[in-house]
């Protein structure tokens, strides 16, 4: 810490000599940076001793930034231990009357505080040092905060300056590629689409693998809401200040039963105490385009194939072809123009800091007839009351989303639809569209244009989340804080999905046209209360937290479909509804013990109760312990100039999982009524049936034990900093859906605690600042995560052949979960090739040695690869030169495999079936398969990729009008993908590439104004 004190040359003669002596001594010792603890104590004691004799002096000065010398308006200047103080004015100046010997503290957000003892000086200018970024950062952890340097767990913080740039409407997208070990896969390019987030691989098989997401202290229910495509959609990305990812158990265990898959804490922007009113506008317009289309045959090509294939298809099939060359994919996509506007106002009214923001997004999808309009509003009030004893944190967020989903099934139809046909043939029964049923083929591909444009598939979602957090310093015990957090989360959706009677029946089976209405409602209430006690005794520091948490989730919904049942026949109504709830009650405690500011110990314990389990299994105890050693603080390193930070972290902890995705009552014997259409006739009446549900009265928590070793380091004044972690996570008593013995329960499978799995990995994060000068600044962020997953036990019996297969009977089982392999590994037949390297149709290695046909038999398949990457890397760059700034983010995923489902379904014999023609990808001309080869490893491809996610350039104009600053920026998203994968996009969740809403390339022009 560097302090510069400008003493007045004038020395007051009436000042006691001893005071001067000590003052000089202090100045000298500060200069030498060698002050001893004892002398300081003596000094302080003497200062106090002479205080009585001192008279008030008027002291004034200026607070400025140590780096650039610019004044700091709104900095707090306070006489320590009193309520006397003020804020610096617009020029950073202050003036106070103080008693000599009192201590003045200077604080400003983002800067290291300074304290100066006043002797006789009249002028005291202070240059505050900016907090050395990440190291002195205060990070949010569960139920509290901790200085980043004191953190004992594996925590990664991504703040707004590092977020991905571009037309981003989903909060998750800000974080893509920014945090080691965090894999975020967007569902596709649909407006407002959600994402799958995986931290350090999945720890569960059948329970949820989603991390717990906490927004401003409120754990969010990640259960979907019908009509909503993204459960995080209620947070406007522009309102987010930081993402804090808690990765290892010592960090997450305070969230006990919900923390097995990591925790992401989202903090939104707040008003600053003493900050002047700030107005900001951020707006952008973007243009998005499809990057590429699936390569399928043209009309001319399919007519040629029809002639060549007379042997395979009947001669009459040729007559079914039309004479067009319709590019169906081009017909359903468009150039989409979107816009986004955000307005925020923040500041403080006296001691009431506030921030208000509104946002409006109008996003159009590149698929026609898909769009989203979203309005968000947020309010945050963070006043401090009663002489700083009560800190209030009030947040209210609201969102109203109108979404038009269109029909993304038209994407597959567009690749399958016969390109030789016209879009419209004028047939009135199908509203003028060409439809196969008019030509005798009932199962024919629906006309993609009609499928997309005639559907009326919209929803309206509203969600309000509010929480009030009170942190109260107990008056008679100032080391003790009581913290109460009350939150409510209410979401409501209404939607419909209608089709006209002119739509082909295949889209509305069994109706002729349909009117579908649905609605759902999720309510989530939270009450957290904890006490926090912090005490420093000599070289010991104790930070003790204990509390409890209560959370209630309620979800309900209904759906009703009315369809016309053929001309002249009754209309049919299908309806269903559900309502379900669950509670979580927890007690938790944490001890942070710090010795000599070098040795840090964290112990946490959480006792969680879940209403999902029966009384005897309801409670789970989740402990954790972590130790950190700030090696840099040791005497032998303390003076090292090269090494600026070194900390070793060791952590161990147990977390749980009870987030069973679709059943809140898995331990109870219940019956469920069937919905209409599933009745049976008893005594002459059609009545609903009542089915006993499969249940496990002994079902209990899944438990994940995590061990983590981490090293935080920094070199050359932290111009190079980073951390390295290795971990091992073992999940036992997996909540796993397994086959049960026939006759033992009310289904063929049961969700129960069986099996174990393991994730092992390492993560490296590096932050580099190669250039940091007045006008030029360059920083690079790099992270890499490595993870391997292995199943170690799977079923009741130790049958080594037991496996869980994925895939339907029609297209073959292509994925497997089996002991000794990663979950959902690929499970395929080994293709045999001819001399020129072409796959021989239907010829596979006879791996079982049984001979005969090996087509599709599981015994002849082998296990290889899976869709999770071995390595995932993120590299981002920020560069500023004077008023110009530039940033970019790239990502690389290595070792992730994909099964090309679009290619594997392609065969000549499928091109004409059931009276209609189907298009196929041109890949078919390479394989020349006459029959579909659904389980050939020919279609398993290495889908490793490098993606240039975004590039952004901006220019800042200061004071364009009075104090109005402006910045314009230009951003390109989804710039470049480098991959060997033959399909459209190598980034596919789940491992099987079928048609999905393609991610567009977006060009965005943004304007920011601030005042």
């Amino acid at each position, binding site marked *: 810490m560097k302090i510069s004190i400008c003493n007045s040359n004038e020395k007051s003669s009436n000042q006691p000599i001893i005071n001067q002596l000590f003052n000089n001594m202090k100045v000298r010792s500060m200069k030498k940076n060698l002050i001893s603890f004892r002398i300081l104590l003596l000094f302080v004691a003497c200062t106090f001793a002479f205080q009585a004799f001192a008279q008030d002096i008027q002291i004034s000065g200026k607070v400025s930034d140590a780096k650039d010398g610019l004044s700091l308006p709104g900095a707090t200047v306070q006489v320590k231990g009193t309520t006397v103080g003020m804020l610096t004015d617009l020029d950073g100046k202050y003036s106070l009357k103080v008693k000599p010997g009192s201590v003045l503290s200077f604080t400003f957000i983002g800067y290291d505080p300074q304290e100066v003892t006043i002797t006789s000086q009249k002028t005291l200018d202070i240059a505050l040092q900016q907090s050395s970024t990440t190291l002195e950062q205060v990070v949010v952890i569960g139920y509290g905060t901790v200085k980043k340097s004191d953190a004992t767990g594996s925590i990664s913080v991504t703040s707004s300056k590092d977020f991905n740039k571009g037309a981003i409407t989903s909060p998750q997208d800000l974080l893509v590629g920014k945090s080691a070990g965090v894999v975020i896969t967007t569902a596709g390019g649909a407006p407002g689409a959600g994402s799958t987030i995986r931290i350090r691989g999945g720890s569960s098989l059948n329970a949820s693998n989603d991390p717990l997401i906490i927004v401003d202290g409120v754990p969010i229910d990640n259960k979907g809401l019908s009509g909503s495509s993204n459960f995080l959609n209620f947070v406007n990305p522009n309102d987010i200040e930081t993402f804090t990812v808690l990765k290892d158990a010592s960090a997450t265990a305070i969230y006990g039963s919900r923390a097995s898959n990591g925790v992401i804490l989202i903090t939104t922007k707040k008003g600053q105490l003493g900050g002047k009113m700030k107005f900001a506008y951020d707006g952008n317009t973007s243009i998005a385009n499809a990057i590429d289309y699936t390569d399928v045959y043209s009309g001319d090509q399919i007519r040629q194939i029809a002639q060549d294939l007379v042997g395979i298809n*009947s001669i009459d099939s040729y007559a079914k072809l039309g004479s067009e060359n319709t590019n169906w994919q081009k017909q359903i996509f468009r150039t989409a123009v979107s816009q986004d506007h955000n307005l925020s106002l923040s500041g403080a009214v006296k001691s009431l800091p506030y921030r208000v923001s509104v946002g409006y997004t109008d996003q159009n999808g590149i698929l026609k007839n898909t769009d989203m309009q979203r309005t968000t509003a947020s309010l945050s009030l963070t006043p401090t*009351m009663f002489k700083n004893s009560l800190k209030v944190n009030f947040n209210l967020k609201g969102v109203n989303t109108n979404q038009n989903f269109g029909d993304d099934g038209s994407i597959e139809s567009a690749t399958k639809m016969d390109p030789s046909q016209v879009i419209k043939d004028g047939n009135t029964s199908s509203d003028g569209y060409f439809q196969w049923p008019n030509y*005798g083929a*009932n*199962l024919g591909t629906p006309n993609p244009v009609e499928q997309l444009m005639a559907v009326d598939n919209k929803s309206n979602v509203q969600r309000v989340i509010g929480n009030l957090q009170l942190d109260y310093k107990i008056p008679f015990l100032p080391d003790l804080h009581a913290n*109460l957090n009350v939150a409510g989360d209410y979401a409501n959706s209404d939607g419909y999905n209608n089709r006209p009677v002119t739509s082909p029946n295949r889209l509305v*089976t*069994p*109706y002729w046209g349909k009117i579908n209405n649905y609605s759902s409602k999720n309510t989530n209430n939270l*009450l957290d*209360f904890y006490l926090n006690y912090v005490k420093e005794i000599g070289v010991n520091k104790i930070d003790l937290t204990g509390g*409890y948490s*209560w959370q*209630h989730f309620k979800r309900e919904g209904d*759906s009703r479909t009315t369809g016309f049942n*053929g001309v002249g026949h*009754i209309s049919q109504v299908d*309806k*269903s509804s559900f309502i379900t*709830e669950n*509670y979580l*009650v927890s007690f938790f405690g944490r001890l942070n013990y710090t010795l000599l500011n070098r040795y840090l110990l964290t112990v946490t314990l959480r006792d969680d*109760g879940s*209403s999902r389990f029966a009384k005897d299994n*309801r409670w789970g105890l989740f402990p954790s312990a972590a130790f950190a050693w700030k090696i840099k603080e040791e005497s032998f390193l303390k003076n090292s100039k090269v090494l600026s930070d070194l900390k070793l972290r060791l952590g161990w902890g147990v977390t749980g999982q009870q987030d069973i995705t679709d059943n809140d009552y898995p331990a*109870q*014997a*219940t*019956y*469920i*009524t069937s*919905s209409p*259409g*599933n*009745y*049976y*006739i008893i005594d002459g009446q*059609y009545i*609903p*049936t*009542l089915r*006993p549900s499969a249940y496990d009265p*002994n079902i209990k928590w899944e438990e994940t034990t995590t061990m983590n070793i981490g090293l935080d380091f920094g070199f050359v004044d932290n111009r190079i900093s980073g951390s390295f972690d290795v971990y091992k996570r073992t999940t036992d008593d997996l909540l796993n859906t397994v086959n049960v013995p*026939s006759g*033992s329960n*009310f*289904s*063929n*499978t049961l969700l129960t605690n069986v099996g174990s799995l393991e994730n092992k990995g390492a993560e490296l994060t590096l932050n580099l600042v190669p250039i940091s000068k007045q006008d030029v600044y360059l920083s690079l962020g790099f992270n890499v995560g490595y993870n391997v997953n292995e199943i170690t036990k799977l079923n009741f*019996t130790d049958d080594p052949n*037991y496996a869980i297969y994925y895939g*339907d*009977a*029609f297209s073959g089982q292509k994925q497997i979960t089996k002991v000794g392999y990663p979950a959902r590994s690929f499970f395929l037949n080994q293709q045999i090739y001819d001399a020129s390297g072409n796959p021989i149709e239907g010829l596979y290695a006879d791996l079982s040695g049984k001979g005969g*046909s090996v*087509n599709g*038999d599981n015994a002849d398949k082998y296990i290889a690869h899976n869709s999770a990457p071995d390595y995932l890397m993120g590299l981002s760059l920020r560069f500023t030169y004077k008023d110009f700034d530039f940033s970019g983010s790239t990502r690389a995923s290595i070792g992730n495999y994909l099964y090309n489902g679009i290619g594997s379904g392609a065969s000549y*014999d499928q091109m004409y079936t*059931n009276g209609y023609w189907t298009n196929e990808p041109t890949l078919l001309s390479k394989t020349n398969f006459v*029959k579909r080869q659904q389980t050939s490893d020919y279609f398993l491809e290495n889908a490793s990729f490098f993606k240039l996610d975004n590039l952004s350039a901006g220019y800042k104009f200061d004071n364009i009008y009075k104090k109005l600053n402006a910045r314009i920026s230009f951003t390109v998203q989804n710039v470049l993908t480098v991959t060997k994968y033959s399909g459209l996009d190598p980034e596919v969740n789940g491992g099987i590439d079928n048609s999905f809403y393609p991610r567009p390339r977006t060009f965005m022009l943004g304007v920011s104004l601030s005042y």
Partner: protein
Amino acid sequence: MNKIIILGIFLSTLMVSSCVKDLDVTPIDPNKILAGNLNDDPAYMQQALAKVYASFTIAGQGANGGADIAASDDNFFTTTRALWNLQEITTDEAICAWGDVGISDLNTQTWSAQNPFLTALYQRLSLSVTYANEYIRNSAGSSDPKLIRYNAEARYLRALAYAWSMDLFGNPAFTTELDPVGKVFPKQLDPVFTTGRKLLFNYVVSELKDIENKLGEPGSSYPQADQAACWMLLARVYLNAEVYTGTAKFDSCKFYTEKVISSGKYSLATNYRQNFSADNNRPNNPEMIFAFAYDGVNTQGYTGTTFLIESSSDATYIRAEDFHGLTANTNWNGNRSKKQFMYVLLGDTISVYGNNPIPWATDPMFKQSKDTRILCKVKKSVDIPSPSSSGDYGIGVYKFTAKNTNGSQAANYSTAFASTDFPVFRYADALLMRAEAKFRLGDATAVNDVNAVRARAFNNDPAGVITAGQLNANFLLAERGREFYYEAQRRTDLVRFGKFTDGNYFWAWKGGAVNGTNTSKHLNVFPIPSDELSSNPNIIPTPGY
């Protein structure tokens, strides 16, 4: 203010105790009923019985609760569909064109214990047993006459599931209402296959005899099981007793068929096709004894008769829109029959077509044949080029229809789902079972029952009448084929006559050879699926697999 905050903290601390009680939840959904509340409402017991029936016919509960069986395709895993597949496409009667994993192995008799269609039926039948066990437990000891009858019906359905399981799998896992539900590991009746199968035979017979008088009078409770359904099932298992136990029981078979016949409640429908039309139910159809009910509006699914109609239809040769009145999601083009079975259908081809090859190009619908049961059409060719070649090859079958017998639209018509019931026991079966029993017992009057069935089939044309001298074992087997083709009986009949796996009878693609080949005798029963073996260490695998 400080006091208020302290009070607030105090109050919230008090809440802790009540919060812990919040964990005691019970379902709040009115569609969910706690097992303990089942007796609260008499309607519940009716609905629970409906489930035992529905577990044979449809996939599950629909949008509320989904399918009963977790599977890649809910509809594959229904009894009527899986049973049909195992009983038909493994024989001369049918072959399926689809590429689903396991289908080709059924077509060619090369299945293994992993075959998903075997798993489907094994698990389905076991699940029906488990649902029935639960119902029998809950309704036991009631003095309500209705519940006594319902209880007997549940026991009937359990016996039916076991009878099929005994026929197809031989020695399945065995549970009754006395066994617990949970993480338990049931056993077979005996680890030795033949002993277990024999014990299961004895169990089925004793159960049926015990409930005989508790069921409704014949014809009184259609489509719920009644006494005649009970007698028919007894007759069926006695007919096949030698396969199951090694000891023939044709006298008992004869005894129970005669109880059905002498009840006087049943007669042959005038028109053979009525049995496979939307109005095939009692009281419209005097021939139907027991069937699984389907309804276009109330009991829907791509299973049962809808599956039979759609899988047998194609866009080119037999359009479901034209022949069956279904217009939505039609013409799946999968199942059709083979050349060898066409000869069975036509009986003595010489009497029909003279000494000439069948002129299928000019008579694709076999109009020259006087047998009205031949509801078939030759497609692109009579020969099927490969076990999985397109459904456009072979002999199309359009025996089942979604229309009424007279061609009119069904009541509760749906564009996608047939209202046609899936026949389990028809009166014609009572006649042909008695004929076979009599024949085996050396009773020359057997021919009268055969002629009764044939008279209806030939519209009383003398061409249908046969003499006692013409009646032999082969004729009986063929006659059952002609009468019951596509009714999920063929495999059982072929096994009983020793023609399913041995070298006496070949059909296209049997054993994977174009003209058929000898297959191993162990294939006469299907193996216990590997899913069951790996989840239950108590289960002994089927010999030969």
